[in-house]
C-alpha cells in the first residue's frame, strides 16, 4: 500500500522507475535527522517503558519480571477506572470546546480589525506562561472569596466553590485548561487560514456565496487537515494532562480531579510502582491509539487532500 503508482502513467517506464527511486531516496534522507532524534529519545525509551511495564520495578531496587501481572491489576483497580472516567470526561468536554473556540477566534483574528496585534498577543499570553504560575494564579482567582466569586457576587450570584466542591472542581480544571490552551491552536488555525487562496474566496463571492456558505464550503474543507491535527493532538494532550491538576488540585477534592496522567505520575514516582505506572501508560496508549486509528481511517472521508 505504501507505494502508490503514479496515476497518470499507465505503463511503467524505466524513467518513471528511476524517478521513483530517486524520490524515495530524497524521502528517506529528509526524515533521517528527525527520525534519529525520535528514535533515541522516544522510540527506544518507549520500548524501555514497555519492558518496565512487565516488571515490578520500584525505581530504587532491581526489577523482577512479572509478565502481565501489572495489566491484570488494572482491571481490579477501582481508582484507575475512576481516573479513566475523569479523563474521558475531560477529553469529551475540553477538545470540542477548544477546537470550536480556537477556530472561531482564528477566523475573527484573521479579519482586518484595529488592534489585531494586541488581540493576538492577549490570546497567546496564557500559552506562554508557565503552568505553575497559571495554577497559583487560578487557585487564588477561584478561591471561595476570590476574584471570580467577587465578580459573581457583584451580579448577585451566590459564590461557587470552584476548586473545593467535588462536583465542580473537574470542570474548573477543564476551564483553566481551555483558557491556557486557546492561543496555541488559535495560531495554528491562523497560519492555516493564510494558506487559503484568496482567489477561491473571491470567486465564490462572485458566484453569490455569503460568508457562512464560504466558510463551510471553502474554509472548512481547506482547513480539514489542520482540524484533523488539532483534534488528534488535543485528544492526546488531554489524555496526558498533568501539570494543572498537579499544581492546582493534586487530584482532589476526593479523587474528583484525578486524571489518568496524574494517576500515572503518582503510581510511578510517588508510590514507586513504576512497573504499574508504565502499564497504565500503555493502556492510555492503547486507548488513544484506538481513537486515532478511527480518525485516521475516517480521514479519507472528510480530510481534504488526504484521499
Amino acid at each position, binding site marked *: 500500500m505504501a507505494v502508490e503508482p503514479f496515476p497518470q502513467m499507465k505503463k511503467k517506464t524505466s524513467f518513471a522507475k528511476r524517478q521513483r527511486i530517486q524520490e524515495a531516496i530524497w524521502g528517506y534522507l529528509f526524515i533521517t535527522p528527525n527520525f534519529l532524534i525520535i528514535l533515541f529519545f522516544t522510540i527506544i525509551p518507549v520500548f524501555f517503558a514497555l519492558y518496565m511495564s512487565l516488571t515490578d520495578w520500584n525505581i530504587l531496587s532491581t526489577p523482577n519480571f512479572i509478565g502481565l501481572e501489572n495489566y491484570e491489576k488494572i482491571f481490579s483497580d477501582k481508582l484507575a477506572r475512576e481516573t479513566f472516567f475523569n479523563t474521558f470526561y475531560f477529553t469529551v468536554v475540553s477538545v470540542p470546546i477548544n477546537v470550536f473556540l480556537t477556530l472561531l477566534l482564528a477566523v475573527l483574528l484573521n479579519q482586518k480589525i484595529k488592534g489585531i496585534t494586541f488581540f493576538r498577543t492577549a490570546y497567546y499570553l496564557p500559552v506562554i*506562561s*508557565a503552568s505553575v504560575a497559571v495554577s497559583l494564579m487560578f487557585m487564588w482567582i477561584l478561591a471561595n472569596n476570590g476574584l471570580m466569586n467577587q465578580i459573581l457576587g457583584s451580579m448577585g450570584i451566590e459564590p461557587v466553590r470552584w476548586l473545593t466542591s467535588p462536583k465542580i472542581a473537574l470542570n474548573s480544571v477543564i476551564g483553566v485548561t481551555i483558557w491556557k490552551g486557546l492561543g496555541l491552536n488559535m495560531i495554528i488555525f491562523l497560519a492555516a487560514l493564510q*494558506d487559503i487562496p484568496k482567489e477561491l474566496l473571491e470567486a465564490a463571492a462572485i458566484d453569490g456565496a455569503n460568508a457562512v456558505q464560504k466558510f463551510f464550503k471553502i474554509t472548512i474543507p481547506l482547513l480539514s487537515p489542520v482540524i484533523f491535527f488539532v483534534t488528534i493532538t488535543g485528544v492526546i494532550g488531554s489524555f496526558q494532562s498533568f501539570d494543572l491538576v498537579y499544581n492546582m488540585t493534586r487530584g482532589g477534592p476526593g479523587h474528583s480531579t484525578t486524571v489518568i496522567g496524574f494517576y500515572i505520575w503518582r503510581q510511578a514516582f510517588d508510590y514507586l510502582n513504576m512497573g504499574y505506572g508504565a502499564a497504565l501508560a500503555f493502556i492510555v496508549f492503547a486507548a488513544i491509539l484506538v481513537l486515532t486509528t478511527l480518525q485516521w481511517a475516517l480521514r479519507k472521508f472528510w480530510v481534504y487532500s488526504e484521499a
Partner: protein
Amino acid sequence: MSKKNNPTKNDSVLTKSVQAIAVTILVFGAITMIIPFIWSVITSLKSAENIFSHSAFWIQFPPDFSAYKQIWERIPLLLYAGNTLKVALIVSIGQLATSSLAGYAFARLKFPGRDKLFFVYIATMMIPGMVLLIPNFIVMKNLGAINTHWALILSAVGSAFGTFLMRQFFLSFPSELEDAAKLDGCNPFMFYWHILLPNSKPILTTLGLMAFQGIWNDFQWPLIVLNDPSKRTLQLGLSYLMSEYYTDWTLLMAGAIITLLPIIILFFAVQKYFVQSFKFTGLKG
C-alpha cells in the same frame, strides 16, 4: 475581502454586523485572557504586608519593586536567561529544520513504508511522557550528555508533534507549484528550499515559537539533567527562590512576569510573519 465586487447589498450589511459581533467577542475574550496577568503585575508590585489586606485590584502606590530587586540580587538572572535563550534558539531552529524536512517528506514524497512510519510517529506521541522520563535520562547518560546543555537540546531538536504539524500544512500546498518546479528541473530539496519554505512562514513561525516557549518554560527536565549552578535555566534558577514552607506571592509573581516578558517581546517581533504577505510568488510570472 473585496466589497466592490459584492453582488448583494445584504452581504455587506451582514459583514458589518458580523464585524461588530466579532469585535465584541474578541474584546470580551481578551479581557478574560489578560485580567490574570494584570493582577500578577499588580501583585508583584505590592509589599508583602499588603498582599492580603486589600482587594485584588488595589494598586499600591508607590509600587514596591523589592521582589524584582530580590530576584536580581539572589540569582544570576542574566546568566540563566542567557543559558535559556541559547538552548531555546538552537532548539527552535533545529526543530524547524528537522520537522519541516520530515513533514515535507511525509506529505509529498512517495517512498516505501511512508505511511506506516508516519503512523509510528503519531503513536510515539500517545505514550504519557512521564514514564519516558527515566528511560530518557538513561539514554542521555549513555550519550554522555548529562550536566550539559546538549541534554536539553538533543531531545528537543526533533519532534513528532512538529513533523505532524508541518505535514498537515504541506498537504494542502498546491500541487501545481510542485509540478511546475519539477518541470523546471528542481529536485525535491530545491523545491523545499526555494518554494515550500518561503511560502510557509506563518506555520514555521508558529512551530518555532512553540518550540522556543517549550524550552523556555521547561522545569522538570533541566532539573534532572543539570547539576552545575552556572548551567541552570531561568525556570530552574527561579525555583531556588521559593521557600519550602510558604508561598511568597510577590516573588512568585515577579518571577512569572520576568520569564514572560522575553517571550512577549519575541511574540511581538515575529507577529508579522503570521500573515502571509507574498503567498505563491514563486508561481506567478
